[in-house]
């Protein structure tokens, strides 16, 4: 009898847990949809601005912008975007693993300056004695462009002040609900993806052809003025996009984790119910045979 009661209590507890994981799963599913839409809607702007920047930079043989040029590296900045809360499977672990790997490659903690987005990232690097220069928490709820602008400007200020000489962004790219890819993106010196792949809207030009191209194209007010603004905007767009990708990834990871947890709970409840029924049946059978045996003894 004692045994039966214990199983029943166990089942009840698992039901309660399943209640919570199921609620979290539903919330994650609802938020994932809007996060995913926003992440996808932000991609064209980031891509286009990258193309325009790549075009302009390729026309100037020696781009007169410090953020495009780069310089000898003494300190490396790592901007790590993770989540504020747990219960999202391996999401944070994957990002932090990649960030640590990058940190090792860059020559260890003393060379690094961490800019942490999300509570988990902040606590992780603080606990390991890294120099956490900036920490933003509670922004993954719904990243806005204004936030991205602030963060990008912060990064550029650090670069201009000489705090960092090279900056990487570590974030998670949203692929599908069940797949998120942790990525390292080089922010400074800026290499717009369109430039790296050579795939811009205009035919690429070598340094020799650039004089000719400047002739054929008007740039107003001037190439330098446009470039300065374009670089700022590019950095903000890249950060914004990463924040949105990270948010969608986190929601996806949480949905996957909570779906798995709910399924596991259901399976466990089924197994325990079978066990419970079997044991109850055993008790009943024993009681009947005792009654029968007793009756036979009387006769």
């Amino acid at each position, binding site marked *: 009898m004692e045994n039966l009661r214990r199983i029943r209590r166990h089942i009840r507890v698992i039901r309660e847990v399943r209640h919570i994981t199921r609620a979290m799963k539903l919330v994650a599913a609802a938020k994932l949809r809007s996060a995913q839409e926003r992440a996808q809607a*932000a991609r064209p*702007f980031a891509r286009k601005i990258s193309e325009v920047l790549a075009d302009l930079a390729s026309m100037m043989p020696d781009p007169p912008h410090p953020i495009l040029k780069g310089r000898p590296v003494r300190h490396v900045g790592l901007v790590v975007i993770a989540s504020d809360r747990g219960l999202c499977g391996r999401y944070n672990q994957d990002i932090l693993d990649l960030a640590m790997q990058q940190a090792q490659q860059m020559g260890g903690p003393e060379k690094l300056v961490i800019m942490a987005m999300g509570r988990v990232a902040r606590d992780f690097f603080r606990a390991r004695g890294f120099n956490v220069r900036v920490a933003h928490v509670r922004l993954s709820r719904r990243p806005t*462009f204004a936030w991205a602008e602030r963060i990008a400007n912060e990064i550029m200020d650090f670069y201009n002040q000489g705090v960092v000489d090279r900056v990487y962004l570590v974030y998670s790219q949203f692929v599908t609900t069940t797949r998120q890819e942790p990525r390292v993106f080089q922010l400074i010196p800026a290499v717009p993806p369109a430039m790296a792949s050579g795939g811009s809207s205009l035919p690429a030009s070598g340094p020799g052809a650039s004089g000719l191209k400047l002739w054929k194209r008007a*740039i*107003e007010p001037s190439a330098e003025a446009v470039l300065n*603004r374009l670089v700022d*905007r590019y950095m903000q767009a890249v950060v914004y996009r990463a924040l949105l990708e990270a948010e969608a990834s986190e929601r996806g990871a949480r949905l996957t984790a909570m779906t798995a947890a709910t399924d596991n709970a259901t399976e466990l409840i089924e197994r325990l119910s079978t066990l419970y029924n079997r044991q109850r049946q055993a008790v009943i059978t024993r009681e009947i045979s005792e009654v029968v045996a007793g009756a036979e003894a009387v006769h």
Partner: protein
Amino acid sequence: MAYGVARKKIQLDVVTPDKVEFSRPVESIIAPAWDGYIGILPGHMHLLTNLQTGVLTIKDEGEEIRMAVREGFMEVTPTKVVVLAEAAEMAEEIDVERALEAKRQAEEMMARSTEHITLVKAQARLQRAVNRLKVARYKENGLKGTSGAENERRAE
């Protein structure tokens, strides 16, 4: 088409950080370039320019579409125009009440500001609010084909 001749068109993409606001071929565009409004027709020369906060006017099939754009860039090639703006809103999307409120706040801020930086920020905010109201009013008054200045006078 009236003359049975398809007019030449130029592909226009208006893209903001949040979404692709507009994407289709159009007949002509008037855009707030860095030193004033410029008109763009198919076959325009290559151009890369800063954009100011202002009204983007799109003409197509006898229809005029106006958008309030917040500063950004425009890249023009003979067949394609890409407008990259911080924000772009069609008249329907503009909340007049909110724009009026923003205008009031910006004016207040300007009156109070003593530092140059806050003054500049307030001016930019005021400009954006006025710009959005301007676009919203085009729609309200149904004033097609009038110049911005004329419309503003009427709206006052």
